[in-house]
């Protein structure tokens, strides 16, 4: 497990996250992940630290309202958010990680268009490894 850093486009939102150098990522086909280009590294919140920009984050919700879609109010980039599958965790956008620490991205498709079928209990039972 190593420390990766990342952020939005304009640099106002910055974070660090502990994750392997070979990143396990989820490529979801749901309406919001498609439109916002989110490729998710989902981690427990203890492994994520927001370094700056908290006051600049806008929150968007829809459907059940469980997921908190956070994006920089200046540049619009959604560098991380609170996912419906892991409401006590964080989904970091792999595309927003700084260059230099990521060895590879192991992207796995997730059928978020049929979200309830993937998570019949209403949430995920574990974190991806």
């Amino acid at each position, binding site marked *: 497990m190593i420390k990766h850093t990342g952020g*939005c*486009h*304009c640099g106002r939102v910055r974070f660090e996250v502990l994750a392997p150098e070979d990143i396990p990522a989820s490529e979801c086909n749901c*309406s*919001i992940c*498609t*439109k*916002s*280009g*989110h*490729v998710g590294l989902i981690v427990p919140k203890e492994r994520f630290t927001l370094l700056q920009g908290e006051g600049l984050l*806008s929150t*968007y919700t*829809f459907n059940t309202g469980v997921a908190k*879609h956070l*994006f920089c*109010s*200046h*540049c*619009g*980039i*959604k*560098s991380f958010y609170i996912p419906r599958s892991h409401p006590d965790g964080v989904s970091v*956008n792999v*595309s*927003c990680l700084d260059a230099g620490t990521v060895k590879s991205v192991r992207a796995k498709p997730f059928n978020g268009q049929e979200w309830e079928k993937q998570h019949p209990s209403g949430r995920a039972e574990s974190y991806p490894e």
Partner: protein
Amino acid sequence: MSETVRRIQGKCHCGNIRFTFLWPDSGAKIPVRACSCTFCIKHGGVYTSHPKGQVDIQVENESLLTRYRFGTGTAEFFICSSCGVVPIVTSTIDGDEYAVVNVNSFEGVKRSELDQSISDFDGETTESRLARRKRNWIPNVSVKLGPYN
């Protein structure tokens, strides 16, 4: 335009920014480009345009529209301040407005109808960049601000 024109609807997630893109060649696959600039990498932006196309953009609530610029400052990214999605990019060249549309914001278009490639325009001069946009981007652009009809 001929009768082969295809009408493609698109929008941000919440629907504040909508567009109708008239694609002049309904029989062909739509060539799309995953842009590798610093902004589009983070937003997963994948675009298309047609030099004979038309796009009519409507923004219901103008106060929820951010026009973001960076780098050469010659392109405007239409960001919805409500949901964060960027469905449209425009560029004003010699007084005329040109646009590309983000195919990830299309409604009702299958992935199999798209023909994807990757574009890298790094190192291009501003002059050649604007000339390329003039050749390739959608030249007929209208932007309407205010409630939908």
